[in-house]
């Protein structure tokens, strides 16, 4: 085992998949000569050449559509979109084409394509470059949306996404790229994940905290803090936003009796709204307190650090919501946690 960054895990996995299958190729803005805006594709142009590491013009609708067309003929393109904000320029191709081609033509052509793209605020990038719009894609049947939170998960999930015959939006996060985790020395040894399975990443008995991508990591951090206070928090990492593993969420809440959802997107109509609805339908009789959501403030994310920090969900805001929820259960055992 080796300790690597999320960035390195992605890069090594892309390389391993390209070595494994010559139909796998990369497309995107600045991924070749420039080696990627976030250096995920570092060294790959040199190793594989321009046929398999294809720099594109700034034309998201055009090159995402081209990737879909190439996938229809059996190639396995992995597209990098510089940020998820730019995916909006390709929305028609992703939603009306990638997601529809398999069903609309009665299963005659599939679209084995991956779109890798980071979301995330907190970098003072301002309103148009800091959004988390994974919800748009999670809403669409025909798409798969995965959002791994650790290097090992990112590697296993990227393998699964590349080998999957459906279009997969692979959500990364700017704040995760430099985070570290354990990975086998040879990424070829990593088993592909099963897309559509959430994971209980930390077992607990008092409360369930549900997160994905960056917020799953924040949830783990918060659970650690709570443990020191004598509160046993269970963490569920959704890992996949579509398909959504409702069973794992509900089973956890049936054990703990209360839940907080941590999401990086906006609260109204957000991912957390779907999770909360799932919990009320699947664990209504087990709930000791209303489900809470911790999400971004409902504003276009400002540039100024003071405002940006205040707007973003954090370990501190999640901790507050967890404590409020525990208090709302009225359980005596938790008096010590106050």
């Amino acid at each position: 085992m080796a300790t690597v960054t999320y960035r390195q895990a992605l890069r090594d996995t892309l390389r391993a998949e390209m070595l494994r299958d010559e139909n796998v190729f990369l497309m995107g803005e600045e991924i070749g000569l420039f080696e990627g805006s976030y250096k995920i594709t570092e060294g790959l142009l040199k190793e594989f050449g321009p046929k398999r590491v294809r720099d594109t013009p700034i034309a998201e609708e055009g090159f995402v559509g081209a990737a879909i067309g190439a996938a229809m003929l059996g190639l396995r393109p992995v597209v990098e979109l510089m940020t998820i904000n730019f995916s909006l320029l390709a929305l028609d191709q992703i939603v009306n084409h990638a997601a529809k081609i398999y069903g609309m033509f009665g299963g005659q052509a599939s679209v084995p394509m991956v779109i890798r793209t980071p979301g995330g605020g907190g970098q003072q990038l301002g309103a148009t470059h800091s959004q988390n719009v994974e919800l748009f894609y999670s809403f669409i049947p025909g798409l798969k949306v995965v959002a791994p939170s650790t290097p090992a998960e990112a590697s296993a999930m990227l393998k699964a996404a590349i080998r999957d015959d459906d279009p997969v939006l692979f959500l990364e996060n700017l704040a995760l790229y430099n985070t570290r985790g354990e990975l086998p020395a040879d990424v070829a040894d990593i088993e592909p994940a099963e897309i559509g399975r959430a994971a209980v990443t930390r077992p607990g008995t008092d409360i369930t905290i549900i997160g994905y991508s960056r917020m799953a990591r924040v949830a783990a951090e918060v659970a650690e803090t709570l443990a020191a206070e004598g509160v046993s928090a269970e963490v569920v990492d959704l890992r996949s936003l579509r398909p959504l593993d409702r069973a794992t969420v509900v089973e956890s809440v049936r054990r703990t009796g209360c839940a907080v959802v941590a999401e990086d997107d906006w609260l109204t109509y957000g991912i957390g709204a779907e999770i909360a609805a799932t919990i009320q339908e699947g664990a209504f009789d087990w709930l000791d307190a209303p489900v809470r959501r911790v999400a971004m403030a409902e504003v276009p994310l400002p540039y100024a650090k003071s405002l940006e920090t205040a707007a973003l969900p954090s370990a501190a805001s999640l901790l507050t919501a967890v404590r409020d929820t525990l208090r709302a259960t009225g359980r005596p055992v938790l008096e010590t946690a106050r």
Partner: protein
Amino acid sequence: MAETTRSAGTAAPARTRRARGAKAPRRETHAAAGAAAAAAATDAATLVGYYRQMLLVRRFEERAARAYTEAKIGGYCHLNLGEEATVVGLMAALRPSDYLFTNYREHGYALAKGIGADRVMAELYGRSTGVSKGWGGSMHLFDAESRLLGGYGIVGGQVPLAAGAALAVSYKGGDEVVMCQMGDGTTAIGAFHESLNIAGLWDLPVVFVVINNGLGMGTTVEHSSAEPELYRRGAAYRMESARVDGTDVVAVRDAARTAVERARSESKPYLLETVSPRLKGHSVVDPARYRSKEEKEALKAADPLARMALELEEAGILTHDERDRLDADVTAEIDAAAAFADASPMPDVSTLFDYTYATPVPGDSRRLPADPVFRS
């Protein structure tokens, strides 16, 4: 020879504005003259074959319009009436192994690409025997075997896809060509320009074909395009391009052959514009009130099928009686197709969840509207 342009060094063309509406095609183009010469070189049997295919498209579309008013066909229904020569000429330039992407006005292309009228009609009827198993309808015909890779309902949606398919051909070192059909209105949308740029940059074997019928729904080309000579848009991408009379099947075939050959042998994209009238409204339900009575009268004179019938008769290739027999034959084929569609079953509701994902997912949602999320 079609009217062609190369980008670099071409002097800015004088702006020519066509009259409002889909007037008769510009017969004065070089394409028309060239076609006459080519027609002489095309044997009689081939010409009769083209005529029969055009007739098949015509009778199919007329039948579709009737079936639509009888509520056998739902949704939208866009017809190729007036575009028969274009459809047949374009398809005659392709090999069976070549790929085709189209927009939503594509019934005729499916027939001319070699799909049986019965399976196309069944798709319009929403039956499980349809080319897309009843999942697509009129706008979304697809047949992997004949390499029709989809009719697409979103204007411009198919254009990047076609560029991508051509990228796959080139990636695999194949010799197939991808043809991408679209309407005149598509040349205003971003996807068109992004795709032409990409195809030009990457030397992709794709032929973009703009079917200029003068109207995007009810809006004329002159009202939607700053450059109404649409083929000239190729110049911005250093792409060879041409305009051809879309009512002349041989002229269309020859212009398309030039384009396809260039794509196949040199792996270069090409932009071909065909000009032909749209004989009826945008779709079956559109009475085309935005067209004047004079325009509608003029359309009759521009009917490519009537024109070809006359030419074949004058050339002694097809007599009036032979034409009637051909028509009866084609009409019988269409009747049989409609009967097949009518007798075919609708898709079973148990198949509703079969085509959401190609790779199965755990806990796949197979929930009907009133079903609970959790069954206890």
